């Protein structure tokens, strides 16, 4: 019961925040609403009993990504002037609607498991087993790590040229 109330508060807040991100003229405030949106999504993870995911969401999306975003905004010269109106507004809207349609249709048609028992393992232990056990995702994980490292080194190499 309390979880339902929490879910609806969080859901409405996150949609309002997401709308504010794209509607607001003030870029800095839009970024703050993006943080609110990330935070409410983390709250929804908590109501789904995925505490580890929620903590990682806060740590990475708010603690790193949103902070870097705001950092970039602070370096922007005319940030106070507001969001410049783009010429790509129409195509972007079409693409967004198409993407939303695909996501909704796939979410509705997917055969979700319902009424299952709660897993015995905590989500942290389960994730660890899944990622690092022998028949888990060790190889993709390592490949992703190496690719990220390569991307970081590549960015540094490109900047060094000048």
């Amino acid at each position, binding site marked *: 019961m309390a979880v339902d109330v929490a879910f609806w508060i969080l859901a409405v807040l996150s949609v309002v925040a997401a709308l504010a991100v794209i509607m607001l003229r003030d870029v800095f405030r839009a970024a703050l609403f993006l943080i609110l949106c990330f935070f409410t999504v983390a709250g929804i993870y908590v109501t789904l009993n995925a505490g580890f995911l929620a903590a990682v969401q806060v740590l990475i999306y*708010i603690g790193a990504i949103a902070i870097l975003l705001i950092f970039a905004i602070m370096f922007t010269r005319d940030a106070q002037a507001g969001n410049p109106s783009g010429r790509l507004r129409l195509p972007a809207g079409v693409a967004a609607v198409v993407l939303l349609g695909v996501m909704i249709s796939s979410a509705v048609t997917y055969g979700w498991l319902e009424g299952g028992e709660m897993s015995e393992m905590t989500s942290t232990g389960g994730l660890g087993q899944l990622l690092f056990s022998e028949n888990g995702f060790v190889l993709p994980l390592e490949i992703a790590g190496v690719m990220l490292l390569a991307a970081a080194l590549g960015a540094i190499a490109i900047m060094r040229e000048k």
Partner: protein
Amino acid sequence: MSFWPLDNYWAHFAVFATVILAFVVIGVMAFIYVERRGFGPFQLRRGPNRAGPFGVLQPIADAIKVLLKEDIVPAGADRAVHFLAPVVVFLPVLLIFAVVPFHGKLGGLIPNLNIGILYVVAVSALGVVGLFMAGWGSNNKYSLISAMRVVAAMISYEMPLVLSIIGVVVIVGSLSMNDIVTGHQVPFFLLTPLGFLIFLASSMAEINRGPFDLLEADSEIVAGFHIEYSGMKFAMFYLAEYGHALAMSAIAATVFLKGWVGPADDYLGGLWFVAKTLLIFVLLIWFRITFPRLRIDQLMGFAWKFLFPAALINLLVIGIEEVAFDGDIPWWVLFINFAVAGGLILAWSKLFKLGGGRVEVAV
């Protein structure tokens, strides 16, 4: 050990929410007094000694004074952001205490949260958003410079902080604060001395204190992000600053000093916890008054060239020990770890210099 008679969740929540609020406010007042009184002898003066016996009432007098001051919002400021910033800065401080076990296994709001220490790290990253809002919303260039310094420091120091905690988590095999407290018979500041030192250094940077208080740097950018704040809002920043110091001391006491564990901890657990927290805070005061403030390039260099590699090697050593002893590390391993820590610190002090007085600016 069922020490807490209230099984009702909401009653538990109400009681501990009150306890945490009282603990933070009273703790902050005590910390402000201890720090200002402690600074006295260090600077060859007396410190506050007029209000009440030994100046004990000084924080209360300051609080009343600050409440009565006029609230000023600068022209051209983003009013909503300016108003919300102190709240956003203070909120994470309270949230951190939700997982701190004050007394025994059940003496806390949710000390058994299975992601405990990860929660602490995630929540304490939220405070920087508030500092940003203050820096941007004040419409003041010094505030903005300070906000930028915060990001640079935060992003650099979060990594050694987390890595030093991971060392403990690897030994314990759990993220829950209670499991960490009872995880090993040896306190972790002895078992992983390097991790403890790295945690102290990077948590001082995380709470922007001591030699790392670049975002305030009175001599360069006046007071940084809270330059345009007065009255109650300034008090909130002050409260958040010391509350954060209290939170980090409490976390260090819980993770590295075994929190509430001590002789007769069935009855005195809470006192042990407070005593250990105070011990860590005295250490922080000592560092703050002893070391000169670092320059921004030295700050970055210290994080990336010293703390980060040292934290990685520390984690590697602990991982090897964990595998070698099959998850059951005996107590005498602490001698090995002390030797590793001493060797690493010596080696780095010879190999690595915090670029003396010269700054090289790439054009």
